[in-house]
């Protein structure tokens, strides 16, 4: 399995290099919306400007690190019939997607972390101090977030076996997550009802939860609860994914090509 993964990773790495420019453009992708939202919050509460600056920079960083694009890939591949190529191979197609995610996210990390470090030299608001344990917790939360978003995106993509507009379905989920993941506002500023919902739904653990750890907004009880709920969602998603995969293969009728 490890050897297979090494081969896959190398293949995806070469693929990524072929699309260097597109990768860079795409990496800068979703920064305008968080910046505008940041301006709104700074205007609402100027005394907290530094905290908002840190929060929304962290949103941009975490959002990139956990972003998932598999639903668009799967949608296209299933619709055009090229997905059959993967089904025929002796390795589950999800491994290709996992390898691709690892390659791109390592690249994001390698580029974004030094950018943050340099920016922190000039902007004091971006500095933070964390113990080794906290860093570990943050990285774990980040990994959980990336896994949750990836699984959700992949599940939605597999729905393409039944319906043709899976990207629209995923779009609706993305919009819901806009509120409940903490992208529109730090979760503590939301109305209490939405805050409550956000604890039990998976979206918060995709973006807001890792940031809460790094800003120390989450105490040990919150963290324990957060990791527990996120893990439960991972299990739910994995079970759902397996079930949909089996049912989908039965349903699959490849389009010729």
């Amino acid at each position: 399995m490890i050897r297979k993964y090494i081969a896959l990773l190398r293949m995806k790495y070469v693929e990524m290099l072929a699309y260097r420019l597109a990768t860079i453009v795409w990496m800068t992708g979703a920064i305008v919306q968080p910046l505008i939202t940041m301006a709104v919050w700074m205007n609402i509460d100027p005394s907290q400007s530094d905290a908002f600056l840190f929060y929304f920079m962290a949103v941009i960083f975490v959002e990139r690190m956990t972003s998932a694009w598999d639903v668009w890939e799967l949608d296209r591949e299933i619709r055009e019939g090229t997905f059959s190529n993967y089904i025929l191979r002796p390795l589950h197609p999800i491994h290709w997607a996992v390898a691709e995610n690892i390659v791109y996210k390592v690249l994001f990390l390698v580029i974004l972390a030094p950018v943050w470090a340099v920016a922190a030299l000039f902007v004091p608001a971006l500095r933070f101090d964390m113990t080794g344990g906290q860093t570990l917790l943050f990285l774990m939360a980040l990994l959980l977030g990336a896994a949750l978003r990836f699984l959700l995106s992949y599940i939605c993509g597999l729905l393409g076996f039944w319906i043709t507009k899976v990207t629209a379905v995923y779009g609706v989920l993305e919009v819901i997550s806009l509120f409940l993941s903490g992208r529109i506002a730090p979760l503590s500023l939301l109305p209490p009802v939405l805050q409550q919902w956000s604890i039990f739904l998976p979206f918060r653990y995709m973006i807001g939860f890792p940031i809460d750890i790094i800003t120390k907004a989450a105490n040990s009880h919150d963290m324990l609860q957060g990791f527990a709920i996120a893990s439960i969602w991972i299990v739910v998603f994995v079970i759902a994914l397996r079930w949909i995969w089996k049912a989908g293969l039965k349903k699959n009728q490849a389009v010729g090509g």
Partner: protein
Amino acid sequence: MRRYVRIFREFFRACFVEELEYRSEFLGNLISSFFGIGIAVLTVNIFFYQTDQLGGWTYADVLVLLGVFNTLRGMIDFALRPNMPRLLEHVRRGTLDYILTKPVDSMFYVSFRHLVFWRLIDVLLGIGVIGYGLIKKHYIPSLVDVIVFIVTIAASFVLIYSLWMLLMTTSFWVIRIDDLSFIFDSFFETARFPVGMYRGWVRIVLTYVLPAAVITNMPALSLLGKWNMATALIAALLALVFLWLARRFWRFALRFYTSASS
């Protein structure tokens, strides 16, 4: 002029017929439009859960602004977005030949041939939100308010069209595949909120350099009766100047068009 109105009506009809071929998509589009505006209103509500003013604008004012934003975006998605990226294709593939040989102004043709009819729903929804905001504010715009509003929103539309056209016309020299519309989207997104909300140099840039915020703020202020004749006239004048520039640049660029062999 009459002839062009007739041709535009013909474009409209052709696109409408085309759209009717995909009738089942209509419901989906309708739902997504409603969903979009609903989310936008919800976002504003979340901000106003923590405050009672944004850059000096009250909740009702911001709703009017949101309505103007949606209306303008609907108009752009209806007429501009379907056409502008196509120009790149025409130049790259050499299909601009077919357009140049038609007995109709080429700039008019490439700008308005393709209309996405259902995007007009966004215009209607935007007007609905404007109305809702005005009711919340208990303000009935006078006739002059409405006239200034129409002048300024038209100026905004013409300005956006001219700038986009200028950008796209550069494709005669620089062959590009990506349509760069994401740049436009990013800047237009800043127009969603009062420009007074931004600070320091960002505000200056958004007011004078990339007037993204002004293009929606001014029509909204007009409807709220806070217009200023001088700025409205400047906006209209600026729009006409840029339209003229875009027109001149298009003419100039056509001279460098050498087609592409097929």
